Every structure is written in structure tokens, then in C-alpha cells.
């Protein structure tokens, strides 16, 4: 096995909930509660889950935008878990982030040139023919007109803005890019353009991606391996093919069968798993297996013993007491 670019071990983020005059901590939101995974050079790891499962927090922990409360993050052999801002700055060149909303993640008062050129300025990087030339090269690379150097973000459409955001992350030739919902704010036809662009850039520049998204079909399209999160835990982690073709965790099964399929002929014949209710609050997650309150296979053990992420054939990892090996037989959940 090749050495991993990024290694995350038992990562935790508990946001304190404070109350009263003394601001005593009364509880904690366990946004990320002990997750471990590796990211290998050149691959794309997809991180999927519903809102509140901690996928965005995970992305922000890796980029050190929020401070972890436990666990370890190792990037290229350096432990960056609690590295100081000053020390981590050189490493920021190598880890960059693409944000979800291209409307709020670009400063409206800066020109495109200033936005994409900022990384050079901050990192003090000198380029052979000046920053302007370098920025224009990057703009061309992401499919924007280099002459738009002096324009402002509001002059661009949503898809073009997302390209500006991508250009900014690429400025310093990073190794790892964390993309948090990179296409979910875009129209369908524009989504496809950006997805293709991300794939082209990956093969051209040898990039490694961690893509965080809630759209299971987009994640399948771009990922090599996929991790499914539920309430701050990774419940399943496997390569794309085995995760989508033979999911082992009941939650993954339910997620996949909930995706509407654009085929009007198939709608009557599909057998589905319907989950009841909503995702429980991460403030007070169910004990042991966190999915047991919505799981149709739950037994007594699921309420008392927490399942650990164990590796099965083909490196397929799953945290479940009763995993399914083949595509699940459709079970009608009582509604």
C-alpha cells in the first residue's frame, strides 16, 4: 500500500453548549465523534451524509479551520492536529478548500485578480513573470477569460464564480483539496461543467480530493472511495463499486434507496427502504449504535454495545452488528 497523504485518527470535535451567568458547560454537541480514515495521493475520497452528520465539520477540521478536541491529523508525516498558526502556514499551501456557496465565499469588493492573487501575496510566493501572469494562467486553466482579471465577482454567474473559487484554491499548486459541497448551489447543467472541470484538473495537476457532498449520485461519479457518515461517526467506508453495489450498513442501504431515480417506468417496480423520522440531535445522540432508533434490523445489542468500524473482504469497512453482504433484500419499514 502506498503511504497516505492524509491520515485521520480518532478525530473528535465537541462543541460546548454553555448556559447561565457563569457560562458553565452543560452539554456538548458531538459534531464529529471519533472518526479515522486515510487519504491516498491521487485519489478522491467522497464523504456523504445527511445534514448534521458532521461532514462539513470534518472538512474544516482537516483544514484546521476549527480546532479539534481530540484525535490526530497527520498530513505528509507531520502531525498538524494542534500545530500553531505560524507553523502551519507553510503547509496551508498544500491543503486548500473549495466552499459551497460561490456567492458568499468571494469578497465582493475585491477584483478577481486580487482574489486569485491573494494566496501568492499571503504566502510570499514569487513567480517568474509576476503574480498577474500567474493568475491569468490559472484563470485560463479553469475555463475563465484571463481578461476578466479586473472584474468583480458580481459580474459573474454562479458557475463562473465557482470557477473563481477553484482558481483561488489552485493558485499555489496544492496537493490536497477539500471540496465542501462544490456543486450543490449550482444549476444542473452547470453542476456537470464543474464536475468535469474538477476531474480534468485532478488528472492534469495530480490532485487529491476529499469531496464532501450530500448528493449520492454526484459522489459516486467523482469518488474512488466513499465514506458514509451518520451523527458524527463513519458507518461505512469502501471503494465506490462495493459501496454502491453491495452496501453493508443498513443506513447506506436506506440512503441509496431513497434517491429518486429519473426513470418514470421504474417507479412502480422499485422496492424501497423507508426510514422513519429524522436524524436525532447530535446534542443527545442515541447510545451505542446511533442508528438503532431508525434501523429495522436493530436488536437488543445495538442499544447497548457500540459497533466498531471493522474491515471485511476487499477492505470494505462497516460499523454494524448485523451487516449485509449482498445488496439488501428490500425490507418494508413500517410507516
Amino acid at each position, binding site marked *: 500500500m502506498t503511504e497516505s497523504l492524509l491520515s485521520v485518527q480518532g478525530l473528535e470535535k465537541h462543541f460546548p453548549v454553555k448556559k447561565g451567568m457563569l457560562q458553565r458547560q452543560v452539554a456538548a454537541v458531538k459534531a464529529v465523534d471519533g472518526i479515522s480514515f486515510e487519504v491516498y495521493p491521487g485519489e478522491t475520497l467522497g464523504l456523504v451524509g*445527511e445534514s448534521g452528520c458532521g461532514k462539513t465539520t470534518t472538512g474544516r477540521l482537516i483544514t484546521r479551520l476549527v480546532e479539534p478536541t481530540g484525535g490526530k491529523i497527520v498530513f505528509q508525516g507531520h502531525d498538524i492536529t494542534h500545530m500553531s498558526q505560524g507553523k502551519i502556514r507553510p503547509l496551508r499551501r498544500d491543503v486548500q478548500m473549495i466552499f459551497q456557496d460561490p456567492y458568499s465565499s468571494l469578497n465582493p469588493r475585491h477584483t478577481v485578480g486580487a482574489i486569485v492573487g491573494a494566496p501568492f501575496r499571503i504566502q510570499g510566493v514569487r513567480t517568474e513573470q509576476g503574480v498577474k501572469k500567474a493568475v491569468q494562467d490559472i484563470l485560463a486553466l479553469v475555463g475563465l477569460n484571463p481578461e476578466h482579471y479586473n472584474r468583480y465577482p458580481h459580474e459573474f454567474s454562479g458557475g463562473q464564480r465557482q470557477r473563481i473559487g477553484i482558481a483561488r484554491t489552485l493558485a499555489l499548486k496544492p496537493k490536497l483539496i477539500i471540496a465542501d459541497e462544490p456543486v450543490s448551489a449550482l444549476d444542473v*447543467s452547470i453542476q456537470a461543467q464543474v464536475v*468535469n472541470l474538477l476531474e480534468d484538473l485532478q488528472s492534469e495537476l495530480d490532485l487529491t480530493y476529499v469531496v464532501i457532498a450530500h448528493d449520492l449520485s454526484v459522489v459516486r461519479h467523482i469518488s474512488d472511495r466513499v465514506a458514509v457518515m451518520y451523527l458524527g461517526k463513519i458507518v461505512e467506508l469502501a471503494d465506490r463499486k462495493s459501496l454502491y453495489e453491495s452496501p453493508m450498513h443498513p443506513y447506506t442501504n436506506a440512503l441509496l434507496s431513497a434517491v429518486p431515480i*429519473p426513470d418514470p417506468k421504474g417507479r412502480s417496480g422499485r422496492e*424501497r427502504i423507508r426510514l422513519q423520522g429524522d436524524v436525532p440531535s447530535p446534542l443527545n445522540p442515541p447510545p451505542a449504535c446511533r442508528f438503532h432508533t431508525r434501523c429495522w434490523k436493530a436488536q437488543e445489542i445495538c442499544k447497548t454495545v457500540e459497533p466498531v468500524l471493522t474491515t471485511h473482504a476487499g477492505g470494505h469497512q462497516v460499523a454494524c452488528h448485523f451487516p449485509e453482504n449482498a445488496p439488501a433484500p428490500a425490507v418494508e419499514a413500517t410507516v
Partner: protein
Amino acid sequence: MTEHFLDVKDLKIHFPTDDGLVRSVDGLSFQLERGKTLGIVGESGSGKSVTSLGILGLHKGGRARVSGEIWLDGEELVGASAEHVRRLRGKKMAMIFQDPLSSMHPYYTVGAQIIEAYRIHHKVTKKVARKHAIEMLGRVGIPQPDRRVDSYPHEFSGGMRQRAMIAMALSCDPELLIADEPTTALDVTVQAQILDLMRDLQRDFNAALIIITHDLGVVAELSDDILVMYAGKAIEYGAAEDIFERPEHPYTWGLLGSMPRLDREPTERLLPIKGSPPSLINVPPGCAFHPRCAYAGRTGGLSTTAVPELAETEGGHLVRCHLSREQRREVWATEIKPNLESA
């Protein structure tokens, strides 16, 4: 008069602005029967939401210029008084909005909002209306409806709020229900619950349903007919199976090619549409789609000069395109379909 339950004829909704006239909806026609579902698909700015507000008469008294005809159960609505349409709204036709948190009043309990709507249209006591509200909340699958009726919208989760919204829309037993992106704000497992609920309720109430969305998967789940909009016009309209199995407009091909699918082998690459949707102030001349269309060159220059008509290609399947039927079918069969299915 018309024999259809809902018959929209040449509907135009234009907004005068300082920068020019915005033609949000520009000559839209469609029909819908009781118990049937129409899916309206399009990207942002294609005019799909403006259409739904127009049917409900919510542009009356505003700056919009509305023309054309909307016949609902034998009554014409465009020319009707605002007061008359207001009386129909809620009872005859109702709407489910995209974001239940911003479309419900945060100061009133969910129950109070349902009771208010019910008592406007029915002369009943508060007690009777409250009983009805509890019954409706139970109907849409809210647990302990007799307790939750006194909750405020912020005390509900996203999925529950959308259920409460549906209960409110259905409280007066409307015959036409318009759902504007009803599941876009929801997680996928909750979306599946809501889609199931809407399908069941429609069957029970035998209402006509218009579902507006950008998600082709949602449309395919529910719709009998599909209308694809682009820049304020219908560009393809027909039975759901025709649109998905035999689409004939290059824009529809583009939408299908842009979308990764879970039910098929993963394709190497997506086939997006180039460029982005046009500004409605400055709609391209001729066919509005021609700057983004890969096949515009095959129309002999027609696409840049003349606006194509929405013409029938076969059995109620309408397409607005300058390419001939033979050209379109050949392109679909040889260039598009194989690429969508290749592994």
C-alpha cells in the same frame, strides 16, 4: 370554456424594470386534469416559479403584466378580480412552498395557522377547526398531533415542517395543489418520505398536482406529464415516459447528460451543456437556446433568426426546435443515447 380542469393558454407574465422588460413567462400553455400530476422542470430563472404564482393570482396588484388565459374548472382567472381569486386560494387551489421555515409565521403556532386558513373558508367554531387541524396533522404523519398542534414552527424539524405545510395546504381540500420545490431543502431520506406522502395524499384527495422542481429524479417519481421550461417558454412537453425515453429537444438531452445516475453504470464523463442560462432581459434572438446548443449549426441559420414553434412530434409530445423530427431522432439515437448509457 374548456373541458380541461386546468387549462393555461398563452400565459405571459412580464415585469417592467429599469433595465428593460423581463419576460419571465412568455407564452406558456398546458392542461391538467384532476388526479393527474404535471412536473415543470427548469433551471433557475426559467420562469417556473413565476408561473405557479401567476396561477394562484399572487401577481395581482403588483407590477407584473399578466396576459393570456387561465381556466380553472370552467372559470377564467387572469381577468377575475383579486378578491374573487383570493376566495379561491386556499379552498380551490393551494400551494406548498419550498422553504417551510420562511413561509410559516414564526409568532403563531402551527395549529393557529391551519385553523385560520380553515375558518376563512368554512363557517365553523374554533373548536371544530382545531379538531380539523389535529386531524390534518395526523393525516400527514406528524406524531402526537394533539400535542404538536400547539408547537411553533421552529420547534419542528425540517421534514416535520414540510409535513405541517402540506397539512395546511390540504386543510381545505383543494382541487389544485401546486408544490414549488417541495423537497429541495430536505435530506434525501426525508425527501423520500415527503414524496411518498404527496403521492398517497394526491390519490386520496384526487387533486390535480403541479410539481415544480429542478430535480429530474423527483419529477420522474411523481409526474404523469412533464413540461420543460427554458427562458420563460416551454421547450418540450409530453408524457413523462416520452420525455425520459424519447426526448427530442437538445436542452432536455443536456439536462439528462448533466446528471449522474445511480441506476446505471457510472459513465466516464458527464455531458454538460456549455455556457449558462441567459438573462431574461436579454433573451437571445431566434431560439433562446441557440448559443448553448451543439446542433444549432444544423438548422441552416434558422435558429438565430426565427423563434421555433412548439410543435407536435408524435402523440401529444410537443417540441420547440428548428431541427426536423428526423434530425432530432437520429441525433438522439446515434449521438446522445449511447453516451448516456456507456459504462
